[in-house]
């Protein structure tokens, strides 16, 4: 991954996004937990600006003396959640010069992670390659940790294939302690349903994000084509592509999307379809609210 996806500009964008979301929604999966993540435990978590009406007993007067500004001390709530983000790092995600799917997947993961740390949740980020699951960010808490760890997303190598169920099912997924986000193109014969089942069984809130490129959504190829699979070169599709074939492709596309969506709904999981070129703000400010992932 040569291109730096997570940079200062993106982080600024996340900050702005977080501010907007904060003023408009209570938080992620608000139905499961209170918006006040910072509770009354004794473990200090962070500072934030004082807002009139806050509990004045939690003002840090030392900080006031030093900075001449009121800061509110925050403490970890007792119901701290653990957001687990799974990124499909197969070669198909990074195919092409732009690697647009991989970039979008990283951005979505970073955004979820940021929003989670802002909620004082723990965040773990995993990379799925083959049947293995590699944790590249381990139980990250707080913005400082976020800034220290998030650069690991830039280092992800997208290669090989990804067996989602094989990677997730045997892993420790936690139980009833937060959100699990699977980001993939889901263009595979592999049985990813078991992974969703496993997460749902563990009382996790599950969100499947399917990211597809512009060419996959609306293919432009025509004529006699010999298409090779980027992950498995031995797989190929050879046909004269005409309007009838394109029509069949779109039927197949709809079938795949509907299958994932229906499966997720049947398991109480959420499903988000997004293209690689949809702005992050639109995803979080539009799609996820529509899905009631955010309220």
């Amino acid at each position, binding site marked *: 991954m040569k291109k730096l996806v997570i940079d200062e500009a993106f982080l600024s964008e996340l900050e702005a996004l977080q501010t907007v979301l904060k003023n408009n929604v209570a938080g992620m999966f608000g139905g499961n937990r209170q918006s006040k993540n910072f509770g009354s435990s004794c473990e200090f978590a962070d500072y934030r600006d004082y807002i009139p009406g806050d509990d004045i007993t939690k003002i840090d007067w030392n900080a006031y003396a030093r900075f001449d500004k009121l800061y509110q001390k925050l403490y970890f709530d007792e119901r701290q959640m653990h957001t687990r983000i799974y990124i499909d790092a197969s*070669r*198909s*995600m990074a*195919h*092409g010069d732009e690697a647009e*799917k991989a970039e979008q997947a990283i951005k979505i993961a970073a955004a979820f992670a940021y929003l989670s740390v802002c909620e004082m949740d723990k965040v773990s980020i995993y990379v799925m390659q083959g049947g293995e699951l590699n944790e590249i960010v381990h139980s990250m808490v707080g913005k400082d940790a976020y800034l220290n760890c998030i650069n690991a997303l830039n280092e992800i190598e997208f290669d090989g294939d990804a067996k989602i169920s094989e990677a997730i099912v045997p892993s420790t997924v936690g139980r009833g302690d937060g959100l699990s986000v699977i980001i993939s*193109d889901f*263009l*595979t*014969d592999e049985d990813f349903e078991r992974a969703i089942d496993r997460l749902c069984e563990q009382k996790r809130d599950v969100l499947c994000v399917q990211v597809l*490129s512009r*060419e*996959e959504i609306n293919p*432009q*190829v*025509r*004529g*006699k*084509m*010999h*298409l*090779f*699979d*980027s*992950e498995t*070169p031995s*797989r*190929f*599709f*050879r*046909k*004269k592509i*005409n309007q*009838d*074939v394109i*029509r*069949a*492709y779109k*039927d*197949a*596309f709809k*079938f*795949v999307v509907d299958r994932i969506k229906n499966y997720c709904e049947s398991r109480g999981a959420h499903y988000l379809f997004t293209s690689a070129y949809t702005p992050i703000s639109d995803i979080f400010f539009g799609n996820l609210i529509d899905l009631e992932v955010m309220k």
Partner: protein
Amino acid sequence: MTFLFPLGLLGLIGIPVVILIYILRNKFNEQTVPSTYLWELSEKFYKRRNPLSGLTGLISLILQILTIAVVSLAIARPIFIMPNSASEYCFILDASGSMNMQTDGETRFDLAKAAIEEEIKDSRLGSTYTLIHVSTETTAAYERLTDKALAIELLQDVQCSDASVQYTDALASAQKYFNDNPSFEVYLYTDKQYNSHDNVNVVKFGSESDVNYAIGGVEGSLTNNTLTAKANVVSYTKDATLSVALYLNGKDTPAKTADVAVKKGESAPVTLTAAAQSYDSFRMVITNKDCLDSDNEIVSYNQQSEASYNILLVSETPFFLQAALDVFTDSKVDVVEPNAYTDNGGYGLYIFHSYTPEVLPDAAVWLINSNESVADSGFGIRGTVELEDPAPLVKSDSTATTTRALLNGIDGRNIYISEYIKYSGMYTKFTTLFSYNAHPMIMAGVNALGNREVVFGFDLHKTDLPLSSDFAPLICNLLTYTCPDVLDRTDYVCGEDVNVNITANMKNVKAISPDGEEIYIDNTTDIGVLHLDKVGTYTIRFFAMGEEKNYKIYASSPNDESNPALVGESFALSGEKQYEKTDGTYDPLMILFVCLALLFIADWMVYCYEKYQLR
């Protein structure tokens, strides 16, 4: 099935070429995509809207192959065995004089043309038509024409001649077509009696009972102010009494008439006399009505006045020559002494004896014993040689036509000379008749002025030639050579060639045919040829010695063409006739082929658009 042009099938070679190009160019484009999962899955949803869509990739190839095959076959012209289908017709039309005979107001030739027209109209679409016109020359009016209307239109332009015809060339042409395609339908339209053959359909016109008379063999003589005109008359169909009239000098009123009883098929002489001091022409006419007018009249022309010319003899001792000229020519001979000679023109022949003019006259000339050189004469003088004893001349043994004609009737073994003139730089166009010691003594040729010239290298008074028996024929031959008759005779038969003797200074030589057509005659050779293909009077007109000369001749109808029941020789082609017909009924399908070609082009454009534009 056979093919008219089998080489057209070579076009089929294009088919493997097209297939090869198709294979080479029709490659799949390779491309790597993130995942082929959706593409593979799409196979389950694939529905063929058009049952032929599976052939889409092959339509271009199929159409190209079809187009090549169809065009190749169209060029090769396959012939199918299909009864009542199109044929190839070859019409041989007899245009001989007898085809002018009339029956019920229509000539046999017109009836033949109408029959051909009917045959063309009744023929199947796609047939081809070839018309061989057998006239004085055999020509193909058109070959393998497929347009019916045009074939009929061109048929109307074909004319009948008055002459006899030969079928040799027509037979050869028909044989050529028959060899190309043994199914050729060959028709012979004639009035001659021929037996039909398997491979030639003879269509006969006219009847043996058609009444026809003819006159020929005319002769005329003028004695004692009386013209005696003789001719032969014949009735081909029945015994008859023929009324014959004699007209003089182109007058419309007969000078004499007579009735002649003739038996069927036998020639009977008729002689008519009329008072006349002289005549230019006389005409003998059978006034009985019959089916052919052109052989009922014959004209004889007297061209003596046109053929006459004057001779000027320049000599101090003209005795021998003057005597000979008076005997052997009707021309007027003027004699002058050398010191009285001046060239004022007006003579057709100048004879200089022992005298050399300063300038050669522009006419035929004899130079006898000229001992001085003169410009344009074609030779120079080296001097006079006197022999101790008379020596004989040697006669030329050349077999050249001119030499033979000039020495005709001359023995030449006892001509002695005692003195002669040596010539130098002899003009190559001279023919030596006699020589002495390899020196030309009597020679004839054409001088630098283009006039005929005769040269004697000795004095007639110093030789025994004038006293020998060879003198008379020699003078005759030389006169004929230097001033030849323009025409040998005035009575010809239609179809003959007339030899026109081209003499010096003949200019603008042409003939005017009976129907007024002007025919120019080549005057660059000694003999111009005029072909007679019409019955009637031809006028041969030219300018010579400053005046226009008109020679009239009459071309009479050939005897053969007067016989209404002539039996022809065999007319059959070699080879067995076949009955394979051209499938001309489907020729309009060419439109379909053109449409297919257009479809092919359209399909090709769509194919290219899809392949390269990547919509």
